């Protein structure tokens, strides 16, 4: 083998190695997703499982150094708030959801979504009061699973609140508490999302956190 051939072979091998590393990196990037959080079991009398969620006006540098100012959902797991939007719930059972909502109102682009739909009884409770809709301009976020027909508008914390939350975790700040229950139905991997244009800094408020799994949208695995 000539010297040139050796050189070219060395370069080719190095290139192949770099290529393989890049390929691995791309594959790792493409398949990276937030962790999947399993719903905690509720008391047997309630006949289902429980999801406890929080919506925050900014996720903060602790949870996301690259997007500290993005709005986000969090879920409580073993008493700790975890930054994930991929949840697993059992099939054909009732899921009790509690959402602590810490963000101020933005308003809906389509006011149709201000009505509660798809929950048991067609209602939800806001700070203990049972309602079947909220004023669209007071909506801060929504929790919607289109494939299951579950539509939950979440009212915002008043702009004049004394103790508004700045960034996650928000425990202790002024909050609106929303509870509802829905029937999970048959197995599948459904998507859920927010419909409020809550992504500050993006056109129509609909980019960034609204289009990134882990912030304002995610999956609901029904298993």
């Amino acid at each position, binding site marked *: 083998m000539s010297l040139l*051939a050796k050189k070219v*072979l060395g370069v080719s091998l190095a*290139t192949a190695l770099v290529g393989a590393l890049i390929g691995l990196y791309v594959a790792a990037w*493409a*398949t990276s997703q937030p962790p999947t959080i399993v719903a905690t079991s509720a008391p047997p009398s309630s006949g289902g499982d429980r999801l406890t969620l929080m919506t925050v006006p900014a996720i903060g540098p602790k949870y996301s150094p*690259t*997007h*500290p100012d993005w709005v986000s959902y969090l879920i409580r797991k073993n008493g700790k708030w975890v930054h994930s939007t991929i949840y697993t719930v059992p099939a054909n059972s009732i899921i009790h959801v509690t959402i602590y909502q810490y963000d101020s109102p933005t308003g809906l682009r389509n006011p149709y979504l201000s009505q509660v739909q798809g929950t048991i009884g067609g209602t939800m409770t806001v700070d203990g009061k049972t309602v079947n809709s909220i004023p669209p301009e007071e909506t801060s976020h929504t929790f919607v699973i289109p494939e299951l027909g579950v539509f939950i508008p979440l009212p915002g914390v008043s702009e004049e609140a004394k103790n508004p939350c700045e960034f996650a975790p928000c425990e202790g700040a002024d909050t609106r508490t929303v509870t509802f229950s829905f029937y999970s139905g048959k197995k599948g991997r459904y998507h859920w999302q927010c419909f409020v244009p809550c992504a500050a800094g993006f056109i129509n408020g609909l*980019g960034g956190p609204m289009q990134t799994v882990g912030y304002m949208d995610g999956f609901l695995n029904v298993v």
Partner: protein
Amino acid sequence: MSAISEAASAPQPIRQPVWRRLLGFNLLTAVILGVGGYYLGWWIGHLINGPSFEYESATDENDVALLLGYIFGVVGFLVGLGFANYPISRLLGRPASLREKESEGIGRYFGLCTDHKVVGMQYLVGIGVFFFVGGLNAMLIRAELLRPVPTLVGPSQYLSLVGMHGSMMMGMMTSGILGPFANYFVPIMIGARRMAFPRIESLTFWLLMAAGFILVSTIFFGGFPTGWTGYAPLNEQAVMGMDSYIVFFGLVGISMCLLGLNMMATIITMRAPGMTWSRLPIFVWSVFATAILMVLAAPMLIATLAMAALDRTINTSFFVVGGGGSAYLFENLFWFFGHPEVYVLALPGFGIVLELLPVFTRKPLWGYRLAVSGMLGVTLLSFFVWQHHLFVSGINADLRPFYMLSTEIISIPTGFIFLCVIGTLWKARIWFSVPMLFVLAWVFNFLIGGLSGVALSDVPTDVGLHGSFFVMAHFHYTIMGGLIFSFFAAIYYWVPKMTGLRFNEMLAKWHFWLMFISFNSTFLPLFVLGLKGMPRRVSTYEPSLQGLNVWVSISAFVLGFSMLIFLFNVVYSLIFVRKPAEANPWHSKSIEWQLPTPIPVNNFEQIPVFDSDPYDYGTPLQLDGGGGGQPATAGA
């Protein structure tokens, strides 16, 4: 600087110390200046656009910083390669070097070189690398589509993969044939010693390489969700990864435009005596037609992307409905570029096929004038069809019959090419060499692509097919089946001349058959999926379609494997075995095969004088029977 002036063109480079050579204008300097330029732009962007530098630089939400970073980075990269030397020397009134790096050793492949043959090789390798990156994306897409619900790849990453695959193939492969083969062989075929603008020729290549890296870098900035079409206003919502797409396609547009200008200037002005327009090899004609398309279409793309970048950074509203803009504007501008772009991909394929057919049928090209008018007809008509991409968009609905007509009329000049193929094959003596196999496969693939296109040009049937897998299958038949098959035909045909080495024929035949069968097995079922209502660019589909999708995915993996066979053949034959190729293994009458291998820097000792076109076959030629496929050489 290792430039030598025209006068002292004796190949006697001065050996400089290693440190001096490392610090010259070469790839290393270019990378250093490129990275430095990137951080300079990034820093300026944060200074002018952030409420607080510390805060902004910690997040990745500053489009201005990224755009400036890319632009400064590209400028630094080009300066580092030495593209500023010539204009600066001229400005200062110093004698400028006319040639760059032409007589260096292997180093000339890693920098600004004005030898068109070096640029051709650079293109071949550079584009090949990005072709494989784009193919890797396709493999990941097909892996995801094994299941009807997204499991493997995240939803935004899936869209980024789709967008990267599409942009990589549509952007980088626009120069798939013009880059390597036209740069290498057009000057030789017309009897010239160089291109009209050798420095610009090199610039188009290095711009394309910078563009490719910028596109791949999108994964550091969140990817982009728009696919290769980049529709507004979706592109205005997207995170910073979108800026990578914008800069990528902008640079590709500049590169295309310059490449086209250079080709046109070369073909018009630098033909040797006797090389009249009616003797021009048909490949050169196809390059000429493609160059016209590039020059006229690419500026539209650059302008469109500049508007999108302004919308994203300084809050103009070209495409924002609430601000007085229109989403239609982007669609119109994009497809005014986008449809000619499709023919930029197809036309060089026509040229390769018609150029190779006479060699392997041992007949003159049948219907030379018809083929030329077919290509020029396609060139002209392709500017009048772009709204067939928007048949259901509601824009100019009253004009749909016109666009239906113009789109269907474009199949007349395309039909000319088929007639020329049919005529050339008539009573031929087909020699089933590997390039010829790819040419014959092209005929079949492009036929399927063309006939399926008729269903898309007819509005009533396009209603069901628009945006479905049918469209996807259609343009993969025309682009992959057309461009990529002719690309490989050209590789197997010309690389023995470019490198002086021959491929292993058994591996090449395995590559062909595996690729041809798995290509059809991948894309024919996609027509069925599209007819059954499966849309493009989704990672979810009806569970009842899973069977066909699994079939397609497995075929796609086989297709990917066939590419690995090719790669193995390249490494095995061109690096390990290094069997020298014959001077003219195909007994071609084209002028490039009459030159010695390797072709001298100046191509010709004396400028040749042409007295016929290169298709003077069909006169009896006594050759010894070589057994099998390869007749022995008869001394070209």
